[in-house]
């Protein structure tokens, strides 16, 4: 691997680790820690989404389905067996009688997400453009509808509670870093490169013998696996879960984060997730009257609910004014100034 490639990785990983470290500092309030953790989980989800959308150039409105099945699998399988009959009555006996630990739960979430994505992807990846977008939307609709009603596999219309909150700052950071690493490895791999070639010029890629359908399917399944894993992180952070938590709002939020950052790059996915999360936190502070200059400017705290409107307006604005996002679809790069960095060791290529 060349040094330039590692520099590209440096930005996303460095930023995620930095956020994780800031979140672990002693003086950071618990509320703030929750927000930072939420931002890290968002990074995991958005980067997982990016693996498919960014590399293939096909927009998917259905990826939150994979987050949802991962989250529900991890949630249902980690609440204590003794509590299951009260929290989620009606489960299949296999699900009702077993529970998993922290790590197996995340692995299960990833597996469920991946298998589901693979099954869905086999037929769906034949579509393109608007048809594909609408079809992925339909998948989201089916998934949500079943999760929100079928009590044999989950709480149905009820809320899942008492889920162990194992996603702390360490797991959150490691989880996000892990997802970024997999995404980076994929886009540098033979598979990733083929898919990106197909994104740029489908006809030429086909002429070069690239099976676009198959490459898309791999990306879709990998992306679904990561989404499932991120769903596991999500549910173990929140501690509670209902079907509405992983439906339209999350779809919109994650998609917008990706587009705000720039769909075409891993760096864009990370930046988008963090910038939108940071804006949300800032506006929430302003609503609570914790931001001095906003108080001075308005003479009072920002009115309640500004966070929602502000975030949505920001995203709409970026989408309309900068369709290729804040990073303009570019990977992280250092400014070309005098080279004083030491050569990166161990960069076998």
């Amino acid at each position, binding site marked *: 691997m060349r040094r330039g490639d590692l520099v590209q990785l440096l930005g996303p990983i460095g930023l995620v680790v930095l956020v994780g470290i800031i979140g672990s500092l002693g003086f950071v309030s618990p509320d703030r820690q929750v927000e930072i953790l939420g931002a890290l989980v968002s990074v995991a989800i958005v980067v997982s989404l990016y693996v498919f959308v960014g590399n293939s150039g096909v*927009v998917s409105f259905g990826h939150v389905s994979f987050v949802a099945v991962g989250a529900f699998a991890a949630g249902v399988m980690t609440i204590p067996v003794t509590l299951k009959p009260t929290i989620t009555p*009606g489960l299949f006996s296999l699900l009702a009688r077993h529970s998993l630990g922290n790590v197996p739960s995340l692995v299960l979430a990833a597996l469920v997400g991946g298998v589901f994505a693979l099954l869905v992807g086999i*037929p*769906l990846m*034949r*579509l*393109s*453009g*608007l*048809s594909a*977008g*609408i*079809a992925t*939307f*339909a*998948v989201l*609709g*089916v998934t*949500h*509808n*079943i999760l929100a*009603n*079928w*009590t*044999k596999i989950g709480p149905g219309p009820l809320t899942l509670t008492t889920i162990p909150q194992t996603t702390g700052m360490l797991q959150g950071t490691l989880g996000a870093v892990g997802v970024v690493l997999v995404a980076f490895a994929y886009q540098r791999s033979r598979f990733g490169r083929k898919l990106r070639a197909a994104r740029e010029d489908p006809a030429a890629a086909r002429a070069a013998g690239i099976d676009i359908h198959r490459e898309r399917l791999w990306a879709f399944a990998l992306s679904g696996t990561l989404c499932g894993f991120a769903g596991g992180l999500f549910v173990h952070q929140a501690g509670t879960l209902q079907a509405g938590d992983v439906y*339209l*709002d999350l779809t*919109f939020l994650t*998609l*917008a984060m990706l*587009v705000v950052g720039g769909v075409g790059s891993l760096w864009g996915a990370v930046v988008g997730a963090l910038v939108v999360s940071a804006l949300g936190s800032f506006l929430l502070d302003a609503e609570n009257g914790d931001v001095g200059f906003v108080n001075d400017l308005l003479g009072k705290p920002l*009115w*309640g*609910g*500004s966070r*929602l*409107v502000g*975030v*949505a*307006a920001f*995203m*709409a604005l970026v*989408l*309309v*004014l900068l*369709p290729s996002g804040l990073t303009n679809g570019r990977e992280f790069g250092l400014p070309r100034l005098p080279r004083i960095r030491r050569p990166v060791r161990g960069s076998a290529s």
Partner: protein
Amino acid sequence: MTEHVQTLLDAVALGSIYGLMAIGIGLVFGVLRLVNFAYGQLVMAGAYALALTQDVSVVLSIALCFAVVLALSLAMELAAFRPLRNASPTTMLVATFAISYLLQSIALVRFGAIGKILVVIPQLTKPLTIGSLHVRWITIVTILVAAGVFAALTLFLTRTSIGLQMRAASIDSETARLLGVRANAVITVAVLISGAIAALVAVILPMAVPERILVTPDYALRETIIVLVGVVVGGIDRLLTATLGGFTMGFLVGALSGFLPSSGSWPFTSSVYLDSAVFMLVIVVLLLRPEGLFTRSRRSVVDRV
């Protein structure tokens, strides 16, 4: 027997509403190649306008609803659609997704999550009894209004010069402009007609669909999703196929919810799984006919993206 007739009539009425929304979405897609996910929020804005003015006269209230929705449509066109003229269909779809979310959050902040009860014309919700058949007046009115709108629009598109220009712009906007067709004028007219239809839906929907009596920030969102899907499934390239797609979805939803039992322990066995059933069907149709269920051409604009 009469029960089935009632269910079918209700399904036709629901199909008519979805068909109206499909016309609104299809018209704008024709001239702009833009799938407007925020269309439901136009209906939502209209419904709030109606709900907040229930103490004034019905006519004034409806007039206000139209004014609000038309103004909002125009604002969308100027602030968002125009800057996005040359973006790809999917970028535009994501952008309107953002606009939809923005409008929802504004409504949430301004009016709260608790809905407002809206009854526009109470007389229309009363039943009409013919023999053993009980049909609500609104069911009949809805079907007639939708048929009327479709007929009027057909006349407009074939008989007036601006309508003809709109059809030409939908087929090939560059050539239309080379003949002197003012693209922005045509687009503005399409956006306004589409807005007027949204306002009409805002008036009808709370009366026709019992669970839509409550106006909330996500009002008409579910309908929009189903209609959007229907429009693409039907064939978004042409207004007729798009409308048929929307109508079919509404009819299916209406018929299935009438005929399916209201509870069941497995997916697809009861009406709570209605959305799943409909969306599964959509996926199957998209796989079999990605260019649209009702289109005749083999390749469509949707596929060329």
